[in-house]
């Protein structure tokens, strides 16, 4: 007999198993705010209030414990801002504090974002010793002119030196590269990628520079390569990375076999994450609901709220109507797509909620079944290129 899915309402909705849990820690300060950056970062005026902030982060984590009781943390990501403005000692203290409060998976991936300046590179050895086992270096470009146009405070020389030092201490590190930069040619974009490949990272993120709202670039747009040139760049970059042995596994992410960014993979598989620190976002599932949290964004306010006991500014349940879109927004970024069961596991919704749209998108050549695993749905190459068009179909009307 065929099983019939009951219509899901909030009263009958239930998660069968909780997803893996990751921990994101935000460091909101930068020496200088970059004109393209729309992350929660603030120009540092005085020194970093290191001890105070670490203390706040740990107490912030404590406020989350009742929400994730007993769950193991699988990965940690320290992002920013510029986490590498903090000393290795501070990081050590932070990680020790985390270990004392939550159950951390023994071989957990612990990533830290670092700026490729000399000031930071000198601390790489210390970070490794503190327990950080993966570094993500914001190179962006090796071209001195482009670095300047992007408002970066490091130069190409420092970039090379930072990578040298990183390699000495980390066997797992990522380089961030951006393309379609102001005035950039195809040859220049490829030269950046080739240089990055030659530096020997295990992971490479190649981002199309986007003019995000609320950035200086959005208000005063620089002259960017046209859409066709940018698309040429993307295709050529993908080819260079493929021939260098990198797997393309997410829209902008490439890795050596087995070296996916586990922490990010958890986002894309619609896993859970605690977000602590100024402006950090978290997503936590329960047997009967999924919530999103956001901390106060301004560092000063975050510290003040934390001192008063709790820095959560908003906490909202994700409605059932939004879940399919939110899941797809993440999962369809993965080149390999997702196992159909994952949708049910992570959203608590029956597949009938999306099967019609999946079939329609398949008919339209945006999605396909993995021929080796028919239970797997993935975007076609066209689906990857026109992911927004594909995602729109999952938006509630």
């Amino acid at each position, binding site marked *: 007999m065929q099983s019939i899915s009951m219509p899901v309402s909030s009263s009958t909705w239930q998660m069968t198993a909780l997803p893996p849990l*990751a921990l*994101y820690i935000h460091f909101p300060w930068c020496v200088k705010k970059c004109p393209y950056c729309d*992350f929660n970062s603030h120009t540092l005026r005085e020194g970093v209030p290191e001890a105070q902030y670490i203390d706040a982060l740990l107490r912030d984590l404590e406020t989350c414990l009742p929400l994730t009781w007993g769950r193991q943390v699988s990965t940690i990501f320290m992002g920013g801002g510029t986490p590498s403005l903090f000393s290795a000692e501070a990081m050590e203290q932070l990680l020790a504090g985390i270990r004392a409060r939550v159950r951390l998976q023994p071989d957990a991936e612990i990533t830290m974002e670092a700026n490729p300046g000399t000031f930071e590179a000198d601390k790489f050895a210390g970070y490794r010793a503190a327990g950080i086992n993966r570094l993500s270096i914001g190179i962006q470009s090796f071209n001195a002119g482009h670095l300047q146009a992007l408002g970066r405070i490091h130069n190409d020389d420092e970039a090379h030196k930072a990578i040298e030092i990183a390699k000495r201490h980390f066997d797992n590190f990522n380089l961030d590269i951006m393309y379609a930069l102001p005035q950039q040619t195809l040859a220049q974009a490829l030269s950046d990628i080739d240089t990055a490949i030659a530096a020997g990272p295990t992971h490479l993120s190649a*981002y*199309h*520079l*986007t003019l995000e*709202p609320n950035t200086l670039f959005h208000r005063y747009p620089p002259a960017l390569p046209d*859409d*066709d040139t*940018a*698309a040429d760049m*993307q295709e050529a970059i993908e080819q260079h990375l493929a021939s260098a042995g990198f797997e393309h596994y997410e*829209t*902008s992410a490439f890795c050596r076999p087995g070296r996916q960014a586990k922490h*990010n993979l958890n*986002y*894309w598989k619609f896993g859970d*994450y605690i*977000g602590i620190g100024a402006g950090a*976002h*978290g*997503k936590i599932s329960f047997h009967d609901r999924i919530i999103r949290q*956001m901390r106060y964004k301004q560092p000063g306010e975050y510290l003040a709220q934390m001192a008063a006991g709790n820095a959560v500014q908003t906490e909202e349940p994700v409605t059932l109507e*939004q879940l399919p*879109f*939110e899941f797809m*927004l*993440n999962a369809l*970024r993965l080149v390999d797509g997702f196992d159909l069961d994952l949708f049910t596991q992570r959203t608590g919704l029956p597949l009938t909620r999306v099967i019609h749209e999946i079939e329609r998108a398949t008919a339209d050549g945006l999605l396909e079944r993995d021929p080796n695993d028919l239970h797997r749905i993935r975007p076609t190459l*066209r689906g*990857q*290129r*026109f*992911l*927004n*068009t594909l*995602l*729109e179909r999952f*938006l509630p009307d």
Partner: protein
Amino acid sequence: MKHIRNFSIIAHIDHGKSTLADRFIQFCGGLELREMSEQVLDSMDIEKERGITIKAQTAALTYKALDGQIYNLNLIDTPGHVDFSYEVSRSLAACEGALLVVDASQGVEAQTVANCYTAIEQGVEVVAVLNKIDLPAAEPERVIQEIEDIVGIEAIDAVRASAKSGIGIQDILEEVVRKVPAPRGNPDGPLKALIVDSWFDNYVGVVMLVRVVDGQLSPKDKILFMSTKAQHLCEQVGVFTPKSVQRDVLRAGEVGFVIAGIKELASAKVGDTITTVKSPAVEALPGFKEVKSQVFAGLYPVESHDYESLRDSLEKLKLNDASLHYEPEVSQALGFGFRCGFLGLLHLEIVQERLEREFDMDLITTAPTVVYQLVLKGGEVVEIENPSRLPDPSKVEEIREPIITSTILVPQDYVGAVMTLCNQKRGAQRNMQYMGRQVLLTYDLPMAEVVMDFFDKLKSVSRGYASLDYDFKEFRAEDLVKLDVLVNSERVDALSLIVHRSMSVYRGRELVSKMRELIPRQQFDIAIQAAIGSHIIARETVKAMRKDVLAKCYGGDITRKKKLLEKQKAGKKRMKQVGNVEIPQEAFLAILQVSDK
């Protein structure tokens, strides 16, 4: 009868007609202050916003003059735009006098001149009033000179007033009493009442505003409409003060309303004569004509399932707008919709706006067009209102387009620019007259050129100073061809145009290039071609978009990403899918953005 004065106000838009009417009502105590919502006579919202009166309304005022006598002043409001010249002429026909209200800083405008001429032709006494006299920019002497030069009436004694500040209101009313003749007519003759306006009321049906010329009209009279021969029983008569007040009788010389249980506005045509069945008048009052649509456009719902509600909305609008015509039309590209006929461009805009605003319709409007007369090979003459319906050229002997005579009043400084514009639009100059600092140009222009963008162009080349009036002149044979637009090799009927052969190549090229800008890049190349018959005269390509994907998505704030995609999705919804191409609304009107050589 000798204490009755029937008058209307002739004024250009914004010269303060409605405000002045309100002042009269206030001065004569027609409404309590609390009842005076701003500009009482303009009842529709859109009219308030645009500052124009579409439906003529009226107010019967009781005024105690300085001579101690009590007068019954009937103010008949008139529309103030070129599209409504017939309505204006009927309003004027109901009056013995007209106030020519001129903005003391702006001076005379073509529309005012045209309406004044109509008034003078009909033997209406014109009394000049200078409004906005208290503005710092007011130049009464110059404007008086202008009135005398251009309109040709004496204006030296013109009342200086400010409707806004209430200056000179009594002086104007005194002038009305003194200068406007009392109505003449035979109170004992057979009934002759002129329908000045008619509109639909949800409770009582059609309400007619009439001027009784001869005889008298009371409830229970059986009335006859002389143009349609329809008979109805008069149920109610009365006057507007401007509140409606029932009366037992309307007598010769009076202006008031008649309700006769009529359900369709088309039965009570403006300009028709009402008489009684018992003792009918021998002949109708002069000047009646059937109003014909001048401008046509296709209106289509963006979402095809909104067709029914578009029809309902048009039906509702039609209840109160006898000059709106529509009939179902099927376009291969746009699906089911309506071909609508309008009095003019402004009328089109008003209808479109009301459909969108009051009825919440999402519409695709095709470029406005005119009626063409075709002489077929067999000698048969047919009219077409939609360029895509033009038969194969081999079957057509001759295409005739409507020509209008337009009168343009423009300050000397801009004459050159206006003449250049008229020449670009295939105009032929008929007259040019210097009147003080203004020049009165008369041009014969193809109406098809005027309905496109002539008003806007005229305003822009004259910095807003030129004003225009026009009248249909004739149908004239010209070398006209049909210009088709093909999107990915499919002819889009809704984009077809009839153009003069001499302009066809240029227009075709400009049109496809404009469309290339307006159609967003999609997942494939889109070819846009212009063709005359099977001959392609221009081609542009909207290159395929190569990617549309967010570069970054991590655990952070997803609401903005969601909003971005929602916006993108909503934008696509407002586009019309033609074949597999999504075409935005504005691309269907791309021709209006094509500039001339």
